């Protein structure tokens, strides 16, 4: 029961995170590229329920931020007028899954006032909105790279394990080569040779593709090992004896045995590839401005003055924690279930 709870808790957490990131336009109060240049590095807006006069409000509210001239570069709340926070408000237009358009947002401040849940960045862009949109990029890159690496790894690993002989030798040497590749320098080279007119989408897809193409080696080795074991089982030998073709054996008897392992592997690979994308974007090799990703949101922290002066710029890093924790829990539960099923 307790273990089931862990599985469902991890699944619920991940489902929640992914839901937020599938519909960032709705959950984010502002467009990710909208600049408010008068509010560079504004701190997170404070949520109040009790105003300065001591009166309690049912609806949460905030105060507008103004520059604090005495504390150069800082902001203070203008406490003369509370600004209510409303839910399901109309705001900037966004597209849903690239098909529909809407302007309904989950929450926002009244009128033209701004409410920054996680503060703003250097150009006055809402950090919370950018974290949501950025997560979409990072997680999608991780999912696409995982899918690509698993498909490629499964095909090549299965062929190597099933046929053995020279194909096994050839493929496994290929695995070793790919494992030894310095993928960071490969990406640097790819980035430098990209055409100038490459859209953000193309850059993103290329990035995911390169990550996936470089990452097939480990799943391939795992699949090969599994196939080597499964192909010697009695039911596989029997089916072969009855004249089943290689394709039939792989499709009907061998690959289904790998499904749970592949699922566990996927749960391990997704966070790894997300981390790879975050690293690349952190180094400036991912999607370019103004499109956010978790990596390029963290890139500003390479500068000492940002790290020591604007603590809210660490929020993208904090968001990574539940994401990775969820996938680790899920992978652990799936691995436990696999081993229980085996025995």
């Amino acid at each position, binding site marked *: 029961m307790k273990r089931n709870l862990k599985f469902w808790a991890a699944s619920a957490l991940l489902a929640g995170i992914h839901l937020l990131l599938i519909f960032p336009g709705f959950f984010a109060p502002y467009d990710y*590229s909208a*600049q408010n*240049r008068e509010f*560079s590095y504004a701190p997170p807006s404070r949520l109040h329920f009790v105003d300065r006069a001591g009166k309690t409000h049912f609806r949460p509210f905030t105060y507008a931020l103004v520059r604090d001239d005495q504390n*150069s*570069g800082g902001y203070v709340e203008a406490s003369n007028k509370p600004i209510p926070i409303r839910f399901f408000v109309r705001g900037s237009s966004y597209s849903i899954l690239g098909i529909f358009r809407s302007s309904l947002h989950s929450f926002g401040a009244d009128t033209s006032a701004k409410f920054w849940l996680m503060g703003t960045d*250097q*150009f006055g862009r809402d950090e919370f909105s950018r974290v949501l949109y950025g997560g979409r990029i990072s997680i999608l890159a991780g999912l696409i790279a995982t899918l690509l690496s698993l498909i490629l790894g499964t095909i090549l690993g299965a062929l190597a394990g099933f046929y053995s002989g020279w194909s096994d030798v050839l493929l496994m040497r290929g695995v070793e080569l790919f494992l030894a590749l310095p993928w960071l320098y490969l990406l*640097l080279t790819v*980035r*430098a040779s*990209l*055409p*100038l*007119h*490459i*859209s*953000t989408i193309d850059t993103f897809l290329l990035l995911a593709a390169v990550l996936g193409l470089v990452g097939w080696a480990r799943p391939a080795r795992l699949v090969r090992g599994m196939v080597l074991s499964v192909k010697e089982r009695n039911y596989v030998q029997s089916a072969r004896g009855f004249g089943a073709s290689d394709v039939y054996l792989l499709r009907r008897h061998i690959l289904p045995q790998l499904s749970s392992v592949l699922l566990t592997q996927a749960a391990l690979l997704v966070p790894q590839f997300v981390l790879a994308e975050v690293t690349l974007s952190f*180094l*400036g*090799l991912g999607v*370019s*401005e*103004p499109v956010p990703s978790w990596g390029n949101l963290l890139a*500003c922290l*390479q*500068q*000492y*003055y*940002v790290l*020591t*002066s604007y603590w809210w710029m660490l929020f993208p890093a904090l968001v990574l924690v539940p994401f990775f924790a969820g996938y680790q829990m899920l992978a652990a539960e799936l691995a436990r279930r696999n081993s229980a099923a085996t025995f």
Partner: protein
Amino acid sequence: MRCVMPRLLAVHCLFIILPAAAMAQSSAQSHEEFLVARGKVGGLGGRLVVSLRTEPKTLNPVTALDQPSRTVFALLNADLVHINRVTQLTEPALAKSWKVSRDGLHYTLTLRRGVRFSDGQPFDASDVVFTFQVYLDPKIESPQRDLLIVGGKPISVRQLGPYKVEFNFTQRYAPAERLFDSVDILPRHLLEKDYQNGTIAQTWSLNTPPNQIAGLGPFRLKQYVPGQSITLERNPYYWKTDSAGNRLPYLDEVHFLIVPTEDAEVIRFQSGDLDLLNGFSAGNYAVLSRQQAERGYRLYDLGPSLVYNFLFFNLNDLPASVPSQLTQEQTWFRDVRFRQAVSAAIDRDAIVRLVYQGRATPLWGNVTPGNKLWMNRAIPHPPRSLDNAKALLRAAGFSWNTSGTLVDSHGTPVEFSILTNSSNSERTQITTLIQNDLQQIGMNVHIVSLDFRSMLDRIFHTFNYEAAVLGLGGGDVDPAPEINVWMSDGSTHLWHLGEKTPATSWEAELDRLMRQQLVTMVYSKRKKIYDRLQQIVAEQVPLICLVSPNTLAAARANLGNFQPSILPPYGLWNVEQLYWRQAGNGNSR
């Protein structure tokens, strides 16, 4: 009776010899022609700890090109004529005076007498002749050689006496005096043999023992620890004194620590490991300003530097390897109204505020306000105006479609990319602001962030780019070093490299003005010529000048005579006059 006569005689002799020796020494000293430095009289002693971003590649002034090497040389060596980093004017150094012939082709320099190298050997005109012989030797391929070529021909030097040399130019050269600044004089007695053997380029490496290196600077090499530090000690024969007659420098040692990044420098300065900082970002200035009083240091904002950051478009003649789309885009870029519209749409004040936290100056021309002698203050500074930008684009035949995208006369959407250096965060931030600004007039701009080498390769070799953000300037205030930027055949004529003849009439005019100002000897006339050049640049905007960052420095509060400058070596230009005050609130080392 014991004979006391020999003893008495010995004592008498002693009374004769000792004063004679002292007189001889003071006579030798009194023959030294010191330069008296202006500045407060300080006290001897102490060590100054400064950082270098990377190790110097060599200790040989003949072959060094990298900035860390040149920073160390500034303390080890001396020049004939020096540019005062505060007044930005030339003043005597090893040459105590000079005369210029009427035709402006011959400079006769009179050298200081009694000056000695840091190993005690005397300096004279033969060292100067040897130095320039080495630098000008084409077989040596010294980077200094390019600086000593005027009008396509190298300058020549001849010795007129033990303390007199004559430099000859083939044409008049207005900034001739400035040419000698930072041209380090070499010791003939140590390097002549290597030069004759053809091995001078390999001498004075980082492994050379300190006692084999000598110079005329305030310090001499004491110790080098690979990858960690370089220590210099006082040169006991230095030829400058303070106004009280004390021989400079005041400091016993200058210790260079290798600290690879600016952020690491700031952290080490805050913790007390470093005594001064030469140049850092506005963001770190804000961090440092919070703890000035409690940590005992002082910050300096010297106002605009000589660096100018700019956006420029690719107007080069394109090779076949470049995508054909770029050829079409160049029809936009070549229209001055397009460039002026881009300039009008850019919010320079936002760049100053958001990228440099107010510690920068917006620019509309290539000469910054930090250049007191040459800036054309009559160039207009139009405020940002999207309406003006749109009017210019309309006049150039552009229009907007229903979705607000700017299109040219053929209906092609205006879309291009801007290259930026991924390791320069400030320029990347500037490009992000420009992208947003141009979006407001319907241009779709992509940012391509590359490592610096790849970026330069595209700009200088393959020409496979559309626009880029870069920065230039910083070396000297005189227009002469900018010649390669403005001359159409110049090696840094960035927007259109490799022109054999000027591609436009205004570039032809720039060529003429640059050549003319180089041979105009009277400052006021030369200024007018250079003003006209700046006016053309501001009108034609081959480089859309954006901002000049301020020069920022920091030092321990009890470091006396610290007077940083916007010219390199910034805080160390008067290192011989820096001293530690024995103040109660500071650390004296």
